[in-house]
């Protein structure tokens, strides 16, 4: 019974991915690119050498962290669309923390910078959680609006108070902060590449989130609040409190992703540092079935898509933004597929069809043997 269900879900997800790819192929075709060549570049290009592989992983780190937070919030019944703003808040706070103590030892400075980022993201997410819990403000509206506010605050700080003084005196005036002291850097894992300790951090975080959600009483409370608010209240679980807790955690993970981008990759706050990870993280989380075990491979897969899209821009002159189209189509396909996944009648039809197929295949097999 259970195996059948997994088989069915697997088949639906494969079919959905295929349909999404087909739809994007139409778009590619319409802009005059070769869909096959594009897909080939996207999927194989990034993995053709060590540097490509490490770059994929570099991209997957923030995706993983953001998606883990998204999974916590979605599982707790609150839809966090505000990871983008929470990332930016995390970037600001961790940068400020690192720049404030330039002479602190690494054992203090690095954790302090990462913690500051997580905390700032948590506060930014917590606002939406608090608004939802106390004033019933729809979290989708509030998180999207908080994204706009965060973007403006970020721009203001980078162009004003936090702007690197060197840029003003000698540079081009590029809006970016001062470079972080080296004591605030995450170590590189493979010399000569950009892959950093953040990957280990994200993998550990995935394990912790899994344990939190499925092994602890706190996770049980949060999942109950998300899966059945009415039953949760009946059982004495204060649902509103866990909405706030969930948003604090979701924001914390997004903020941490921002901090990790600063101390692992860019080593300073720059414009466009979040590069859409806040939104892509939602796709990663949904594609990973809101489960850490799915999110890790899903983040790597989207890392491949991001790097692959850069490559197609160069090799096949397909704009890298095509990946955004692909992401959008995948979200729509996954959400649409939910109705099939939950429909027992569709499932019955699938197995009728599958049963016919496999029995005729068996017959054909027997025919070949005799």
């Amino acid at each position, binding site marked *: *019974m259970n195996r*059948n269900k997994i088989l069915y879900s697997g088949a639906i997800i494969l079919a959905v991915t295929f349909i999404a790819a087909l739809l994007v192929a139409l778009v590619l075709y319409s802009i005059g690119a070769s869909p096959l060549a594009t897909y080939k570049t996207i999927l194989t290009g990034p993995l053709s050498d060590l540097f490509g592989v490490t770059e994929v992983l570099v991209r997957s780190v923030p995706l993983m962290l953001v998606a883990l937070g998204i999974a916590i919030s979605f599982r707790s019944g609150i839809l966090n669309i505000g990871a983008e703003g929470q990332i930016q808040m995390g970037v600001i706070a961790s940068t400020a923390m690192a720049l404030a103590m330039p002479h602190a030892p690494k054992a203090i400075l690095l954790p302090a910078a990462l913690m500051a980022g997580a905390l700032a993201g948590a506060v930014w997410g917590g606002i939406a959680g608090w608004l939802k819990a106390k004033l019933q403000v729809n979290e989708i509206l509030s998180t999207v609006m908080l994204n706009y506010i965060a973007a403006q605050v970020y721009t203001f700080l980078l162009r004003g108070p936090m702007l690197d003084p060197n840029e003003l005196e000698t540079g081009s005036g590029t809006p970016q902060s001062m470079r972080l002291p080296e004591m605030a850097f995450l170590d590189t894992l493979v010399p000569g590449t950009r892959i950093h300790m953040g990957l280990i951090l994200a993998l550990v975080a995935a394990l912790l989130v899994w344990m939190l959600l499925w*092994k*602890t*009483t*706190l996770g*049980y*409370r949060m*999942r*109950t609040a998300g*899966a*059945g608010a*009415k*039953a*949760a*209240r*009946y*059982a*004495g679980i*204060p649902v509103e409190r866990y909405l706030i807790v969930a948003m604090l955690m979701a924001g914390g993970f997004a903020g941490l992703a921002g901090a990790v981008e600063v101390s692992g990759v860019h080593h300073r706050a720059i414009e466009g540092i979040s590069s859409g990870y806040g939104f892509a993280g939602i796709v990663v989380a949904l594609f990973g079935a809101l489960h850490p075990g799915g999110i890790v491979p899903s983040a790597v897969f989207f890392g491949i898509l991001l790097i692959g899209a850069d490559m197609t821009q160069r090799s096949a002159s397909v704009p890298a933004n095509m990946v955004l189209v692909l992401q959008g189509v995948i979200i729509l396909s996954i959400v649409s597929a939910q109705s099939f996944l939950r429909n027992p*009648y569709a499932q*019955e*039809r699938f*197995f*009728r069809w599958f049963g016919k197929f496999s029995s005729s295949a068996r017959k054909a097999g027997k025919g070949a043997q005799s």
Partner: protein
Amino acid sequence: MTPSLEPISELKLEGITKRFPGVLACDGISLQVRRGEVLALVGENGAGKTTLMNIIMGLYRPDSGSIHVNGEEVHFHSPGDAYARGIGMVHQHFMLVPNMTVAENLALGLKELHHFMNLDIKGAAKRIREVSERYELPVNPDAYIWQLSVGEQQRVELVKTLCLGARLLILDEPTSALTPQETDDLIVRLQRMASELAIIFISHKLNEVKALSDRVSILRHGAVVFNGQTANHEPSELAALMTGHDVVLPRNEGSGIQGEALLSVQNLCVRGDRGNLVLDGLSLELRAGEVLGMAGVSGNGQREFADALAGLRPVESGQILFGGKDLANRTPREIIHAGMGYVPEDRQTEGIVPSFSVKDNLILKDFAEPRFSKMAFLRKKEIDSNAEVLKERFDIRCPSTSTATGSLSGGNIQKVILAREISRGPKALVAVYPTRGIDMGAQEFIHEQLLARRREGIGILLISEELEEVMNLSDRIAVIYKGKILKVLPAVEATRERLGILMAGLADPDSPGDEQAEVPAGVVHE
């Protein structure tokens, strides 16, 4: 879809078999029903009734067997195909859009009313009036669904199905959400309609089956175990065939002497969802070791009373004294810890988290207790073994304790809830409509459980609208009317008629002392 021109004179199923992974849902079922006849299809939850009907409606395809309409074999691929041959179904859960009018709801399903840039609502309303007149089913086409009572919505479903051209009606447990009065009304209407139509009436309430049907077919484990004329068989006989053993609903044979007061509710005032005072000075006392039945037509404050007792609804004024503490306006957590058990009315979404496994639902209130958690971590082994023990003890029928609880039948969901509430060892148990829509076998089991807990000294408040249930189980019966307790009488003195009169808010005929129905607040008659 166009209504079939040719009326249905006969629907015949031959050897319908349907297998799901691990389950034989229908095992060679043969049935027939003719125009002018009501066939009752009875069976416990999970006997295969609904699967069979879904096969007739074209939602499932049978593995083998055939369906014949007027002697001609048919193959339905969707409900649309079934409607085209005049077969329509009213589902147990209504398929109506609440913020649309009756006419708009009909128009949703009638393609011929959809013209380019124009929807013929007037045509829909006209069609509704015709049908509602012809079958004596009064329905106002311009009323919004949300304004209608459950009984009226049921009529809308019937009218809608008839408007879509159905001449053979399949009614899937049509009375499960109705009050007793609405049920009686529906049965009378269906009897009248039956002369022109064919009706398949799915139910496990045998008195309704007896009242309405001409013939009865009983399903057990997916097979027809009995076919016969309803008039020749007693309900008890049918119940035994349905469950496979003699069903004797247990009765409270108590002496009538109970322990001390356990729960004392005084002058309770509670507001309803619309802000009006739904409970208006309700007073009541529950003693240890008794079943106190609360009878009343639903909507007289029962739900709000239960909510207030569980801490799920604010109390305006008054006290809920339980074990020496006032529990009014305490959190659900505090009330649970005080030793109050609660079987809620809404078992699907309040009593359980449907997507959670059976074992997770069994610890819904106790997951943080030392028994099931250690240092904030859940103790998986303990949770597993707890589930296995309770599954056995409460006869919860599920493939495994990891199955999603929402996929179980109503009776088994109720057993999960009861298992959790009882195994927690409460001092008092509030059970709201505990057997509504549940089959005989499970009902028998639940009643036995409640009486066994009574013998152990637990005080049980049983809120129900089934008079049989209240009279069978209670030591005392309190009648609630418009947010007040009208009268509390010993169960031995209660008769159906007397309770019925009290439930209607009329003066009690058997106690001349009552001049008025509206008893002053706070006065409890013993």
